[in-house]
């Protein structure tokens, strides 16, 4: 099933308790208040539940922007429309 970038942003907005309008692929994760230990754990659970994606420790540690999360999802077979 194909999903849009906005679908992923909406999911991230819920995970990080941010407004969806404030999120974009360019947004740096360190600038997001919810990007912390509990936020990371919640993101891992959400990606597993929604897309069946398991993140590796290296992938998580290399996340710098939302675009990095989108790239990993695409690499793991999630069909995200451009």
């Amino acid at each position, binding site marked *: 099933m194909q999903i849009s970038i906005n679908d992923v942003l909406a999911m991230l907005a819920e995970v990080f308790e941010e407004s969806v309008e404030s999120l974009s692929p360019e947004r740096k994760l360190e600038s997001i208040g919810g990007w*912390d*230990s*509990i936020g*990371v*754990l*919640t993101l*891992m*659970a959400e*990606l*597993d*539940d929604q897309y069946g994606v*398991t*993140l*590796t*420790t290296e992938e*998580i*540690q290399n996340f710098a922007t939302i675009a990095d999360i989108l790239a990993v999802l695409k690499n793991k077979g999630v069909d995200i429309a451009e």
Partner: protein
Amino acid sequence: MSKSFDRLSKALAKTLGISSVELIESFKPATESDLEKVVAFRKQFFTDGLKWDDRDYLRWRYSFSDNTADSHGRYWLLKVKDDILGTIGMESFELVLNGEVKQACHPLDLMTKPELKGVGIGAWLNLALIQKSPIVFVLGSSEEAEGLVRKIYHPLPDCISWKLPINILGSLKHKLNVPGVVPLLAAVWNSYSAISRTVRFKGLMPENAAVRQIDRFDQAVNQLSEESGIAGIFRFRSAEYLNWRFIDNPCTNYIALGLYANDMRLMAFSICHFIYSPVNRQQEAVIDDIFWSSDANNQNGLIWAKAMLAETVEHAVRSDAKLIQIAVCSEPFSRTLDSLGFFPRGSGSVCGVYAADPVISKQVYNDKLWFITEGDAHGEYYEQAIP
């Protein structure tokens, strides 16, 4: 929380390449056979070294055997295939909750394997711990710990730090680069401070009361705790707890003072220690704990609290402390500090509490009833003791 914990555990387990069951089973209290491995793991975080033997600290703070009768807590490890991924200490203590004593715990020593930093293990360890105790009380002092406290626990009012400068020469020298003026300014302010203290402290000591240093706490302190003038929620100060926490502490030397009424009854006590401030290049005193009894004529006992505080300040001044600090979360006692000339110096630790039972949570989430002091934290790791 339990359902959410299961979901988060499943996700973390997958990332670590193990099953949820393995993850949960890998979270266990450390035993004697883990000690050397634990010491080696912790050494990564104390790159500047410690002024004490970490083994002494661990053996003092935690029980490494399953016989937990006299234990003050266990040190929990997330150990997968003999590899320690993270640790969290669980100090057990008695919490007085509106007159009733309840078992509670306080997480500390939260550490995550550096190679796994940022993958959520710290949050998971906290979540795993709160499944194991009816009441969890937490203090966070780092930015990361504060974020965890605010998200996982019910936030309590911050512990506010207060200071009472006695001699400001050191701090002025650090802040102002005007060598000729600084000693003069300091002398003027120090004289004002001494006069202000004399006026504010005058008549605080009840008639026929006396102060004595306490070498070891005895049963008198248990009675004081039971008759405390502090209404609300606080840690029960038993002789056994105070002797363990302060007198037998392998990291810091504490000084305990007792205030006795004319019938020699213990009415209040305070505990302080001295630190050397490398910034101001001076000796400073930290009041770690203060506690007082109620009184037939003074239900809240603040008369004893004020007298005890004033005597502790005088003791610190005689011991050459140039600054006296205290951190406390308590509205009534904050007013006492203000009236005795202490200045608030901003937020200290962020405090939070979690209780799964809705009846208990309704009681412990009452922000105004908590009485928390520096002694409830464990700052020994983060300060420089006097050489």
